[in-house]
């Protein structure tokens, strides 16, 4: 007869629930039949379980349902946490649609300013090769973000951006591409507002947008999208939901649900990396949505460090020199390495301002020698 230890008692507990695998369950049942001491152990456990299961069922107080119902309107029904979603998506959209020196597309500007109308894209200048100052780390990234605790990737990323960035420049770009979460929240707090917002996104993805995007060579068939968060406490609700079809043009949603922040549990972590198919005819649209319960949307500005888009390098072009590849020969060589980043969004000014930097596209064939410098 084997001694009764905790391992055996744990098996008895599982046996009691019918959760012990065969043949071990049969072995144990046989022992129970012939070992009184073991049988007493089993009965003692059984008595405990019986006592717990005999507790009367609890009924929720009658006021619970009404209280929840009453509070729902104030809790902002935003399936996908559209406050933060909208802020990031709009910012990314603006950045994707912008070319150097262009005015912000009306749709993106609308969201921030409340204006109406659409479709400024077709009038945008085509000076893709005008001088680019970029918005590198030294000009925009707060010092505390340049050397983050942990991987130090942010600093590396920014270094790449300074060589590859196009699309948004300087202060004007910041103003155009930044959306304060409060502004968006006010606009997307009703189903009607959200419907209008997505309708606007769809409208912006029409021909005029394609005219913009068509000027970009397809860099890759697939890009890796990741969001780096700082200070986001772990949550079992975190999830990546690809292919959400709330709006046809939304290709990717990074869904991050936050628990209430807890100071003692705030940790640094990287989260959410996934892939997105790029349109075969070009860049296409990449709307990156970071979603959170609206109550916590303001915290995202403090947590979000980077949203980056990365992809394998495009096949080298015969006439592509270091300038087209981006910077020094060493950097051009780095750009050929798998997984080189193509751009990123970075928090610059709290509470939620995202700037997106995309790589320089190859210069489009132009018959006008003065069109690019």
């Amino acid at each position, binding site marked *: 007869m084997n001694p009764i230890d905790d391992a055996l008692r*744990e098996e008895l507990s599982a046996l009691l*629930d019918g959760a012990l695998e065969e043949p071990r369950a049969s072995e144990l049942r046989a022992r129970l039949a012939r070992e009184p001491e073991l049988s007493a152990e089993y009965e003692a456990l059984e008595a*405990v379980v019986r*006592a*717990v299961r005999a507790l009367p069922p609890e009924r929720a107080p009658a006021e*619970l349902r009404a209280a929840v119902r009453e509070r729902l309107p104030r809790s902002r029904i935003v399936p996908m946490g559209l406050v933060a979603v909208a802020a990031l998506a709009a910012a990314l959209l603006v950045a994707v649609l912008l070319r150097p020196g262009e005015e912000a597309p009306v749709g993106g500007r609308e969201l921030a300013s409340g204006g109406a109308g659409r479709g400024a894209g077709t009038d945008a200048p085509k000076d893709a090769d005008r001088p680019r100052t970029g918005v590198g780390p030294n000009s925009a990234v707060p010092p505390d973000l340049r050397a983050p605790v942990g991987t130090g990737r942010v600093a590396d990323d920014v270094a790449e951006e300074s060589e590859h960035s196009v699309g948004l420049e300087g202060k004007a770009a910041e103003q155009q591409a930044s959306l304060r979460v409060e502004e968006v929240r006010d606009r997307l707090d009703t189903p009607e507002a959200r419907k209008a917002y997505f309708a606007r996104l769809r409208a912006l993805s029409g021909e005029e947008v394609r005219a913009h995007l068509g000027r970009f060579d397809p860099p890759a068939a697939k890009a890796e999208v990741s969001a780096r968060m700082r200070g986001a406490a772990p949550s079992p609700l975190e999830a990546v*939901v690809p292919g959400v079809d709330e709006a046809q043009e939304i290709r990717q949603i990074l869904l991050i649900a936050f628990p209430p922040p807890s100071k003692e549990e705030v940790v640094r972590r990287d989260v959410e990396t996934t892939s997105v198919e790029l349109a075969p005819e070009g860049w296409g649209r990449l709307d990156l949505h970071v979603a959170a319960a609206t109550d916590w949307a303001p915290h995202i500005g403090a947590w979000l460090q980077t949203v980056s888009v990365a992809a394998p390098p495009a096949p080298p072009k015969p006439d592509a020199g270091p300038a087209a590849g981006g910077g020094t020969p060493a950097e051009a060589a780095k750009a050929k390495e798998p997984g080189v980043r193509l751009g990123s969004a970075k928090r610059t000014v709290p509470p939620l301002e995202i700037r997106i930097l995309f790589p320089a596209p190859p210069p489009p064939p132009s018959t006008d020698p003065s069109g690019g410098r």
Partner: protein
Amino acid sequence: MERRSSSNPPAEPGDAELVARARKGDRAAFDGLVARHQDRVFTMAYRMLGHREEALDACQEVFLAAYRSLGAFEEKARFTTWLYRVTVNRCRDELRKRGFVKHTRPASLDATPDGTALEPPADPSADPARAAESRERDEHVARAIAALPEESRAVLVLRDVQGLAYDEIAAVLAVPVGTVRSRLFRARAQLRGALAPMLGRSA
């Protein structure tokens, strides 16, 4: 032949349908989910927190959080499992606010960890003497549960109060099934000690 279908009541929509409708902003659908699940959520919160008022508050927050996070709910998962997870997390937050998370807290039968008494409802249909005896026994058990370490308590409540299977508990708590088994055993073993006077010498 009699056509029975015309007299059948319409089938109640399942959780998945209600969730889908709620995601589109249908508050009535979400209200249906609340009505369907409020008892189990309340029971879970009550057994975890040991206090009716706090459990009620927690339940409200659970449903509001669930409402806001419906987008995070993966349809392949069971809504109930997901809701339990939200509930457990909410209760953990509450317990941490109180500073109750003590993984080695010994069982105490004198009071709940915050010193407040559990208040299980009395059964008015029962004989008064027997009802009092039953209530006393239930209070005893409830206090012993409330004194369990939070991790063990969650597993025990999910299994022996809510009736979830091991794999469901594992899904709720995001732990391996083996962890569920060992935590459940530890909880029962601790309860056994705490309830020994009540259950007799065998316990």
